[in-house]
């Protein structure tokens, strides 16, 4: 819940920051009077921005406290907070394979996502380029992609176990499968949507094949590819938790399942927040990257 609320707010701020960047508007005229007056204006704006965010957090925490009041198994916000402080003050301890700090769990999950996603990018982005450039390949692959894309990545897990005979590669395999589709599709669409005007410029300037790829195709497609990357990372982070619940080992998903077996609900709630925050950070990092290469165009 909190993750969702926080999730909504930063992009809104980011939007306004972006429009301020793209349009060379002069900063609001400093009000006549002392710098203190100006400071007061800024402070008011800050408060106005923060009030809804804080209110959302308060409503959520209250709801949580009410639920915890009626269902005694669910820990109260305060208990969870105290436990979270304890957990995060020693995130990197190791007491055998089944008892490691939350830092290790998050890092192993991120490692799997990074590997599966990296392999998918390595294959998916060039494949998307080819599909976008050659309509024959597009017609050939689009039925296959349409058929396989809606399948839950977890359905691929048994095949991964069969092929790799181990749990860890199978989880990476599931990540690979779920993150490859958005990258293929978005890259292909990006290539197909390179404006004909740019290609006409290339023809009139008689640019070499290499210049066309580096100066026109690649930069024109990059924002689309990055949207694909962002979608892929988001899905991968969703899937890894579920995959790890099934495969076990070290990882945040496994940790959630392990704590369920220990009936440690506090830790489960802490894990939910940790997963949300990591997902949020990944998303924001990629939005920032996409904005850096958008050249004044709106990004979606």
């Amino acid at each position, binding site marked *: 819940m909190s993750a969702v609320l926080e999730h909504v707010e930063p992009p809104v701020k980011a939007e306004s920051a972006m429009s301020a960047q793209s349009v060379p508007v002069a900063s609001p005229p400093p009000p006549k009077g002392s710098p203190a007056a100006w400071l007061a204006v800024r402070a008011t704006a800050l408060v106005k921005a923060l009030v809804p965010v804080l209110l959302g957090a308060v409503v959520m925490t209250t709801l949580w406290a009410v639920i915890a009041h009626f269902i005694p198994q669910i820990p109260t916000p305060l208990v969870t907070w105290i436990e979270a402080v304890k957990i995060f003050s020693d995130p990197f301890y190791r007491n055998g394979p089944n008892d490691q700090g939350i830092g290790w769990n998050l890092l192993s999950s991120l490692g799997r996502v990074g590997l599966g996603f990296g392999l998918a990018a390595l294959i998916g982005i060039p494949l998307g380029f080819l599909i976008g450039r050659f309509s024959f390949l597009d017609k050939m692959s689009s039925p296959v992609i349409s058929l396989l894309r809606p399948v839950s990545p977890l359905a691929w897990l048994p095949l991964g176990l069969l092929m790799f005979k181990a749990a860890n590669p199978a989880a990476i395999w599931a990540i690979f499968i779920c993150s490859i589709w958005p990258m293929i599709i978005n890259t292909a669409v990006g290539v197909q949507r390179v404006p004909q005007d740019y*290609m006409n410029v290339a023809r009139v*300037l008689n640019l070499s*094949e290499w210049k066309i790829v580096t100066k026109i195709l690649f930069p024109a497609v990059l924002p689309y590819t990055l949207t694909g990357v962002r979608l892929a990372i988001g899905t991968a982070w969703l899937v890894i938790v579920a995959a790890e619940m099934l495969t076990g080992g070290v990882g945040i998903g496994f940790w959630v399942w392990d704590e369920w077996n220990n009936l440690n609900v506090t830790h489960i709630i802490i894990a939910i927040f940790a997963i949300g925050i990591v997902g949020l950070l990944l998303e924001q990092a990629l939005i920032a990257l996409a904005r850096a290469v958008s050249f004044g165009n709106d990004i979606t």
Partner: protein
Amino acid sequence: MRTSLPKPMVERAAEGSSLVRNAERFIEIRSVEMVFTTRSGRFHALRDIHLDVKKGEFVTLIGHSGCGKSTLLNLIAGLLRCTGGTMICAGREIAGPSPERAVVFQNHSLLPWLTCFDNVYLGVERVFSAKESKAQLAARTHAALALVGLDHASAKRPHEISGGMKQRVGIARALAMEPKVLLMDEPFGALDALTRAHLQDELLKIVGKTGSTVVMVTHDVDEAVLLSDRIVMMTNGPAATIGEILSVDLARPRDRIALAEDPAYVHYRASVLEFLYRRHGMPGDKKAA
């Protein structure tokens, strides 16, 4: 890529003896036909086009939308291939796009990820890099931007400058390649009236300085009369052709304010309007080819 690139230019045709002829008929268009084959069938866009353009001449193509004036320009640019007839520029057949026939596109078509300098440099590099050093290429680029009064904006990206400035960069990009012909496809069509007037004046000055041969598509009667040596008026499509060619004998340099009351100017303007609205009235809701 959906479009195959043209092969490198063939070597220059022997100059000298044909020089005079080339100057008189720098661009030679003979019996050109253009038929598009689309999914819904064949569309006969242009028929029987004959046109000669002299070196250093400023010619505008005017007509209602859908009359194929942009198609004709694209044919000269080599972006389209004619389905009949011959097209020759500077003694050689037009076989594809080439930097010697530079195009200023209606929507400027600057690459948004490159600075104004790099946008211009891209063309300069392609044309001159075989013979000149990097410093010379950069000097050419700066000179072209200075010509359109934008050297100060060379480090800016297209989204950071106004529409009129973008179009000026587009003109600089075209001029920097020292083209034999400058082709302009409604270059000021997307601009507001004041910016348009300003850029028309700039273009008059630049062309006065460089002596470029220009073929420009427009739908603006005043623009055509103000800028042109000759106005090529086209009939309505389908199967459009050249209806009439009007020579504009107004002294240069031209001044829009002085001309506004000039009887000759008023007369030329009236002739074009007469052609466009009396004799070849606005067609129905036909879409541009």
